[in-house]
């Protein structure tokens, strides 16, 4: 189902991986639309295709079939450098293992996406300070990642993902390496950023703590959408409207 106003349109996308003597279908003719400002969780068991779907939406992998549109742009038609520019400007990434540059301080890590975009020094400093303040880490700006806790590192990663004001933030299992307290704080932080800054978050998880805070959950099983709470709500609403009328 294609929606022209959606931020992301995933249209009948399949992804197969060739092994030595066989092929594995990670995603099977999947269609999904993500609106601006959504706080969307992709859940499902291991091997259901969550990370593969995020990789495809994040343009760090290419679908075997189908296409993905971001802000109406067909990503399969982009050259390598155009894809790189799209990621640089439109997408922020948060990884399960934080993936901070260990030789950079927290502030320098947050600054990196702006550096790659060629933004001026003064503007970089301003935005980095703002992003670190948004995640509550202004006081830890000059610490290197090895001097930060797991929760702090992931907050730095979130600051890095939002600093260039991307249209979409993709987070692959962001709480998997965090304890309950840090995971809860991180979820609340992301939800808060989603509400206050209107940022679109899409993340994969099978963490129940995260699912409880999520308005929309897309469940994947064997590379297919098993359920999507937004369509369920929509159908319930239709049933309710029909019964009222």
């Amino acid at each position: 189902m294609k929606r022209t106003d959606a931020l992301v349109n995933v249209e009948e996308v399949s992804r197969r991986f060739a092994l030595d003597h066989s092929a594995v279908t990670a995603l099977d003719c999947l269609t999904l639309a993500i609106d601006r400002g959504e706080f969307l969780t992709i859940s499902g068991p291991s091997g259901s295709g969550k990370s593969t779907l995020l990789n495809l939406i994040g343009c760090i992998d290419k679908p075997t079939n189908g296409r993905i549109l971001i802000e109406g742009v067909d990503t399969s038609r982009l050259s390598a450098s155009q894809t790189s520019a799209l990621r640089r400007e439109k997408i922020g990434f948060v990884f399960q293992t934080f993936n901070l540059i260990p030789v950079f301080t927290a502030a320098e890590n947050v600054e990196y996406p702006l550096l790659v975009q060629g933004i001026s020094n003064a503007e970089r400093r301003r935005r980095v300070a703002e992003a670190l303040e948004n995640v509550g880490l202004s006081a830890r700006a000059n610490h290197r990642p090895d001097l930060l806790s797991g929760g702090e590192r992931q907050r730095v990663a979130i600051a890095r993902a939002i600093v260039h004001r991307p249209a979409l933030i993709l987070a692959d299992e962001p709480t998997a390496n965090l304890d309950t307290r840090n995971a809860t704080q991180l979820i609340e932080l992301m939800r808060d950023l989603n509400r206050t800054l209107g940022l679109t978050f899409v993340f994969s998880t099978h963490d129940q703590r995260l699912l409880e805070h999520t308005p929309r959950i897309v469940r994947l099983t064997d590379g297919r959408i098993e359920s999507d709470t937004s369509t369920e709500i929509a159908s319930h609403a239709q049933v309710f409207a029909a019964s009222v009328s």
Partner: protein
Amino acid sequence: MLKFLLLAFRNVFRNRRRTVMTLLMVGGGVAGLLLVGGFFAFMFRGLRESTIRNGLGHIQIFNAEHFRRDEVHVLDAGISDWQRVAANVRSAEHVRGVAPRIEFYGMLSNGVKSSVFMGSAVDPEAERAMSFSPRLASGRDLAESASGEIEALVGTGVARSMSVKVGDGLTILAVTADGALNGIDVQVVGIVNTGFKDLDDRYLRITLPSAQRLLQSDRVTNLVVGLDKTENTDAVAAAFTPRLRGLSQEMTMKKWIDLAAYYKQVRTLFSGIFLFLGIIVFFMVLMASVNTLLMAMMERTREIGTMLAMGTPRPWIVALFMLEATITGILGAVVGLVGGNLIGVALNASGLHLPPPPGLSVEMAFRVLHVPALMIVASVMVVVSLALASILPAVRASRLQIAEALAHV
């Protein structure tokens, strides 16, 4: 891109132990080249100066005919008006002195045994004025104006084969300028060690008037010019050109490098050896660095994947790795320059001597010269080597599949 440079610089020191090992390897290569090259430079300089001071001089002036045809009789292509030529060049800047010479040959006899000699007739005072004193193993140098006995210096080999010592007499036989045979008796006043065994076996030196009497000629073979510094040779030679025009004979001159065949052979040989060493060091650094940089790339696979995911252009990744390698090369060169020069100073202070090399009969001092050009070449060489070594890892890093790199453990 200060931040990018900072990232590269910090990455260099990310794995300190490995970086230290790399710097030691690169620095060792540079230091090795400096020490070997510095010793060769010392050897070249020593050989050059000893060649010049052994009598070659900095510039020699000849009758132009000397190089156009073989002499039928001794000195028939010599310089006739040599006092005037000497006066013309003596007044030039940087000239320490001008010494007339006669090169001749003949037979030596002690009454029992005869031997061939290569003779050199000199003005002892003019020679001494330019520090062209023979290296005496025993006895003394020639006196300027000998009265009575004709004095002679002979090589150590001649003294041994003819069984003569200081104070003994010898008879010299030579063909005169007219083609007749002539002979004089000489008294050995000194025995000379030239440093070259082959020369010591044939060496004879007498005063210029004695040789002119023996050869029945007032000509000289050449004029040997000594300068204050060898480095001034070219400038002085240029200044001589107008001074040698308009004379009764056409004159020509040769610089020391044109006459020092042995020096040139030695220099060519050792330059070849040094080039070979340089190539070995270059490839050693290259191969070892490729391995180290590939390891670094593998360790940072996920980080590179993250950088690429954030939209870092792939050429930046190539540039980052090459920059890191270049920084390592520069630091390694600095380590090598400091280490090499310190070791050089220590070796120079140790007073080390090497046994006489083939063809020489004296021990050779071991000294290392600090040659700026060599330092620049060795440093540039290792930096280029490191930069080249980084190309493969850099290109590999830039071509990583992002999804696979992010999943790398």
